[in-house]
């Protein structure tokens, strides 16, 4: 009984979750390519299968059968650890996200928010180690850029999350979604959403903040020495990160698995689909931003977070504290 409850059942849930996430990441590439090509008045992938739906499978097969090259001058163990360390946090962060009524993905811990912050903190290891172990100046510069960027944007993100935390009054994401909120709280949250979204863009290294992998200056940054499936792991990590952060945003800002105005709240099976719809809309936002906005310079990126976002987030947190004291 001990073993069943502590090891086997969680293991099954974990395996299902990983399977769903990997498939989701694969199809997110399809979704992104389709959307971005429509933004550019193209068709996008449409050869493999109907509407190009088999394209991710084809890409995967291609990546698996590519030759595995490990350059001579790299630090082998760390070189191989890099992609894994990039991928694992992206998956692990899912454990605390509620996917339906009273159903978290893995566990309802009462430190859900801290879990997200902690995993976001260790996310940069994969990149920084990949860059260092490649033993290549371009990779190292790309890795340093990416980790500096991620650490810097983590600060305003953490402060914003702390504000949400204050309003919610609980560290648990399950409770955050479950408890009803007054209308002014929603509006106050949505006022912050664009800035939080900017932080998320920088955290996930997505365009327009994809400076770590700029093709024209740094030769793809930390990914330079990687090929085949190892390179694909970085890409999968990036896409899973997109899914994860979209889910977190959907959970925090848009009520997670709940439909608006409390419609059909007791139909548990509807939860994941509502969440999926919200995530798809947020992913559309990611792609839309990528299609529209050019990349800033690195110093602009850094001064934006340190001189604008961080003070803004602190002011936001202060006002949130006042509101919380006043109305709760």
């Amino acid at each position, binding site marked *: 009984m001990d073993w069943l409850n502590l090891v086997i059942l969680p293991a099954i849930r974990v395996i299902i979750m990983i399977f769903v996430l990997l498939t989701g990441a694969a199809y997110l590439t399809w979704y992104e390519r389709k959307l971005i090509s429509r933004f550019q008045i193209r068709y996008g992938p449409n050869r493999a299968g109907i509407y190009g739906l088999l394209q991710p499978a084809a890409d995967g097969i291609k990546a698996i059968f590519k030759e595995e090259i490990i350059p001579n001058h790299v630090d082998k163990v760390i070189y191989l650890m890099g992609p894994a360390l990039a991928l694992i946090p992206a998956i692990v962060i899912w454990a605390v996200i509620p996917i339906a009524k009273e159903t978290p993905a893995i566990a309802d811990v009462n*430190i859900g928010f*801290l879990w997200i912050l902690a995993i976001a903190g260790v996310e940069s290891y994969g990149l920084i180690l990949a860059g260092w172990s490649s033993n290549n100046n371009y990779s190292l510069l790309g890795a340093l850029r990416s980790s500096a960027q991620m650490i810097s944007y983590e600060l305003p993100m953490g402060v914003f999350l702390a504000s949400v935390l204050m309003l919610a009054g609980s560290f648990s994401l399950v409770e955050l979604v479950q408890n009803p909120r007054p209308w002014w709280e929603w509006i106050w949250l949505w006022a912050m959403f664009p800035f939080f979204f900017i932080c998320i863009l920088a955290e996930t290294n997505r365009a327009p903040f994809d400076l770590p992998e700029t093709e024209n200056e740094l030769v793809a940054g930390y990914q330079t020495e990687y090929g085949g499936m190892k390179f694909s792991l970085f890409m999968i990590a990036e896409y899973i990160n997109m899914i994860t952060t979209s889910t977190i945003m959907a959970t925090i800002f848009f009520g997670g698995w709940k439909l608006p105005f409390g419609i059909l709240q007791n139909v548990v099976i509807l939860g994941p689909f509502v969440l999926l719809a919200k995530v798809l809309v947020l992913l559309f936002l990611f792609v839309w931003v990528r299609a529209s906005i050019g990349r800033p310079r690195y110093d602009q990126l850094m001064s934006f977070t340190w001189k604008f976002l961080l003070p803004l987030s602190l002011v936001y947190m202060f006002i949130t504290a006042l509101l919380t004291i006043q109305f709760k």
Partner: protein
Amino acid sequence: MALPMLFFVLIGAISVAAAVGVVGSRQPVHSALFLLTNFVTLAVLYITLEAQFLAAIQVIIYAGGIVILILFVIMLLGSEEIDGDITNQSWTGYAGLLLGLFMLSAMAFNFLNAFGEMDANAAALQGGAPKPVGLALFTKYILPVELVGVLLLVALIGALLMGRFPSKRVS
């Protein structure tokens, strides 16, 4: 063996191995990674000790902050293997090792007899949830919290001043 015991032995073994790795690695980067492993295993142990909040904080501060800072510094300085030539071989290290072993055995001997079974006081800790810890921090221990805040500010300013390139006057 019961499941918690098995888990403890496994995590403890990883932790000790990582600590040995920190001391024994030739490359500073490897040391830093072993240190990271050690911190993460300690976080896991905190969870088994009903200290969820501390486990999360451990990962945020140590894994997310300190080790990354150390890695940054290693990359800034270039991680040459500096230990190659010890210029003045000293006996203090070996004496220290001996004394350390002695201390370890003394501590182990003491601990083996004291602190047997845990009290069933787990309920009082409430699983180490953030709420009681926070309440204690901001009521009973508010002065130390404020002092730590001042300390962090001072450290920030000090690090900023010292981390700059040395000015002409110094060199």
